């Protein structure tokens, strides 16, 4: 169908020569996993808190994450990176985390959001540094995307704080646990 053809033409193969392929592969693979997991977390949260007062807020954050995931899926195809093998596992784990934190209440969900968004933005930050050290010109497109997403994630983090994340039960414990889990996920997926 015509739609399929035009989609293919939009995702033109990126010129892969001269790129530090292993670095790019890792970055895109890990970011894809991160966004995929974040997506599943918000699915879980919306499933429980969708009709509550924070429902629209979570929905809005989720929509942005959906865009992020879509973008990384496109990059994955353009740069010919393989997706991580553990995706089905993160599918379930993300959902359980989202739904679980939401069952702790609205503040619990916000605490989860703060924890995850902080981890993701730290990660993007270090990736930006890596790419800048390598060659800012060569990776301009990728840098732009990651910078934009870093900005988005910081916003999500702030929204979480605004909605009383810190008042959540066992906020510190919850936050540390989630961030450790995130680091483990990144480690396993690399």
């Amino acid at each position, binding site marked *: 169908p015509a739609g399929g*053809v035009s989609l*293919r*033409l939009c*995702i033109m193969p990126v010129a892969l020569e001269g790129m530090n392929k292993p670095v790019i592969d890792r970055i895109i693979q890990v970011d*894809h996993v991160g966004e995929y997991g974040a997506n599943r977390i918000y699915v879980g949260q919306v*499933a*429980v808190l*969708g*009709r509550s007062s924070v429902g629209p807020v979570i929905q809005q954050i989720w929509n942005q994450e959906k865009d992020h995931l879509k973008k*990384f*899926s496109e990059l*994955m*195809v353009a740069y*010919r990176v*393989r*997706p991580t*093998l553990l*995706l*089905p596992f993160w599918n379930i784990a993300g959902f359980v985390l989202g*739904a679980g934190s939401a*069952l702790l209440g609205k503040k619990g969900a916000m605490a989860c959001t703060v924890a995850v968004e902080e981890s993701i933005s730290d990660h993007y930050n270090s990736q930006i540094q890596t790419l800048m050290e390598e060659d800012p010109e060569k990776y301009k497109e990728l840098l732009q995307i990651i910078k934009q997403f870093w900005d988005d994630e910081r916003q999500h983090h702030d929204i979480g704080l605004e909605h009383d994340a810190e008042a959540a039960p066992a906020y510190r414990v919850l936050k540390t646990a989630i961030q450790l889990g995130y680091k483990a996920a990144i480690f396993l997926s690399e």
Partner: protein
Amino acid sequence: SAVRCQLSPPQRALQASAVLRRVSDEQKKEPLTSSSEHQFDSHPTDHQPEQEPQGPHSSYTGQGGQQSEDYESEEQLQHRILTAALEFVPEHGWTAEAIAEGAKTLGLSVAAAGMFHSDGSELILHFVSQCNTKLSELLEQEQKLVQLGEAEKKPTDQFLRDAVEARLRMLIPYIEKWPQALSILLLPHNIPSSLNLLTSMIDDIWHYAGDQSTDFNWYTRRAVLTGIYNTTELVMMQDSSPDFEDTWRFLENRVADAMSMGNTANQVQSTGEAVVQGLMGAAVTVSN
């Protein structure tokens, strides 16, 4: 030999090439014209300071014409020898003899075969790598034609069939000795390389077939196609029909099976999704 130990690896490679060329000089008619070549010939044991920049050189003259760059890296030399050796595989198999014959056609000494393993591993891997490259180029060309509107885009099953057939047809000139090659490729010390070559070839085919999956499908599709490729290859070894038509029919059936399996998988997934939605609804009800 004592001198050799003092040289660094790149210089040893230069020495190796120089030695081979010197020995073959006796057979060669044209004299070497380049001055740098001459230096090696007359002072083989001197520890020469670097005359030329190290690293791979793109222009190899071969016939002693230009004098600027007739030094090539050891890797490039090995590639040329192995390519030349392929011509002798139908007669000698994937062996050191074939490599020696190949070296001879390039005007090198038969001692060149000593650069390689005696079981012919490098020759086979080189051949597989060459075939994969040819396949990629072929698929790239086809893609260009479709993008320019000069050809119709093939449906997936036909694309896969044609790609696998094109790749397997490259084995035909060597088909009698191919079972031997397959068993060598399965030797433990070759498995990393041969697996690598296989997976990148399959990935290439799916890429040009337009696969854009970024989930577990990525793995399923490649695993399925690898299975199809390997089984078809084995069938081809036993096939004695004219132009291997039995093999292509086998291939067609396997691809069709895979396609219908994909449809079944989709149905299973839809059912699964429906079940999950039901469960979620129950969870929300409970929590509210």
